[in-house]
């Protein structure tokens, strides 16, 4: 190998080996720096990884906890469902017993009173007759109360039998029946065009009957009675209304209007059990609709109910 004057070996291209060494040292240093950088990066990555792993473990723990919580909630729900079923059965047994056992003594009271009033009427003076008629009237009233209450509770478990219902036909029949009951009254009744709807025929009949018979009842003390039954569509719903110019109601007590056993008139003014409008509301809600009303004391009332054009499945449990 040739050597240059300061004794360093000379490379083929003429550079001294020293320079090459210095250069490679520099390259090495550069590489070291790179290595350091990579090492730092690696360390960060490792840190990041271990952080992520702990995070994952934490998440897994959380998931486990959530799972446990869910399982607990499901168990609780099952327990609640069982409890509710039990309560439901008890309620059913209760209403069954009410319908049998409460009506029996009532039947005896009203039955024997009527027998007495029928067969021994000659032996009674005027006062006794009045007292007896009060006993009979009250026994009947209690019978009605029980029947209405049962009707109301029966509605809760009843499913909707869907069909296409001709509302015009239903309304006309019910109005005709009501007119027959009070042939002497002069009532101006107007029945507007009413469309067909989807719903349960018996339930809707009951609903209409309750509203129409209310209109007849609460106009009983008026002359020039007007009753109007009509319908209009609103968004995806069909709204029906029964409007009268009868006794109306005090809007201050509006929130009691549709409550069970709630009445806004005394039975001295108008007889009733306070279940009719509660039934109306229940039937409408079961169909996925709503009820509302407008009224003024002495000026009449208008009762509305809406039915969705297409009733959804299962609104049964309301």
């Amino acid at each position, binding site marked *: 190998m040739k050597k240059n004057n300061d004794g360093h070996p000379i490379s083929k291209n003429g550079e001294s080996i020293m320079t090459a060494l210095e250069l490679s040292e520099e390259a090495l240093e550069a590489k070291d720096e790179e290595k350091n950088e990579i090492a730092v990066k690696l360390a960060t990555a490792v840190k990041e990884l271990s952080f992520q792993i702990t995070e994952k473990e934490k998440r897994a723990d959380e998931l486990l906890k959530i799972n446990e919580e869910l399982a607990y909630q499901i168990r609780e729900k099952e327990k609640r469902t069982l409890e509710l079923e039990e309560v439901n059965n008890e309620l059913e047994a209760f209403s*069954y017993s009410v319908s*049998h056992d409460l*009506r029996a003594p009532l039947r005896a009271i009203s039955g024997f*009173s009527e027998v007495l009033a029928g067969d021994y009427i000659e032996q009674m003076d005027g006062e006794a007759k009045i007292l007896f008629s009060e006993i009979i009237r009250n026994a009947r009233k*209690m*019978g009605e109360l029980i029947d209405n209450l049962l009707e109301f509770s029966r509605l809760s478990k009843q499913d909707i039998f869907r069909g296409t219902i001709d509302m015009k036909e239903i309304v006309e029949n019910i109005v005709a029946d009501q007119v027959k009951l009070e042939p002497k009254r002069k009532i101006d009744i107007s029945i507007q065009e009413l469309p067909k709807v989807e719903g349960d025929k018996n339930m809707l009949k009951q609903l209409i009957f309750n509203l129409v018979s209310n209109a007849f009842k609460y106009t009983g003390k008026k002359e020039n009675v007007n009753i109007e039954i009509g319908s209009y569509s609103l968004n995806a719903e069909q709204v029906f209304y029964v409007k009268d110019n009868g006794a109306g109601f005090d809007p201050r007590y509006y929130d009691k209007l549709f409550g069970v056993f709630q009445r806004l008139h005394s039975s001295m003014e108008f007889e009733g059990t306070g279940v009719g409008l509660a039934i109306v509301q229940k039937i409408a809600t079961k169909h996925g609709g709503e009820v509302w009303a407008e009224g003024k004391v002495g000026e009449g009332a208008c009762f509305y109910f809406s039915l969705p054009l297409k009733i959804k499945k299962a609104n049964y449990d309301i």
Partner: protein
Amino acid sequence: MTYNELQILLVEDNMSDAMLTIRALKKHNLANNLVHLYDGAQALDFLFGKGEYEGRNLAEKPKVIFLDLKMPKVDGLEVLRHLKADDRTKLIPVVMMTSSKEEKDIVESHRLGVNSYIVKPVGFDNFSKTVADLGMYWLLVNQTPRE
């Protein structure tokens, strides 16, 4: 009374209801040959000649049975089930009388082959008329098949 002329068998545990029923039937001269029993067990003994009715001539059958649904021990549905399952008694018309319009009772009674089902109304006028109509129908109008 001999059971020869037996026309109505009334099975009713509630004395008030029984009195009112008998009274309504009497008004229409339908209660002359009536036997009143107080529960389902007694009714089954009577109809099948067991217990206190051991040896009763079973050929003497009532023309109609008025059967209360809800009774202690053996209820009306149970009695109905026995009656309609036995050749000796299945042709006797049975009128089920009950206090309630419970759907499941009505369905079950008809499934078991009841001939009439009436809900005892609270008003006596209605009650009296219903009982009398049914007595009249099953005693006078209806022709039971000869065996």
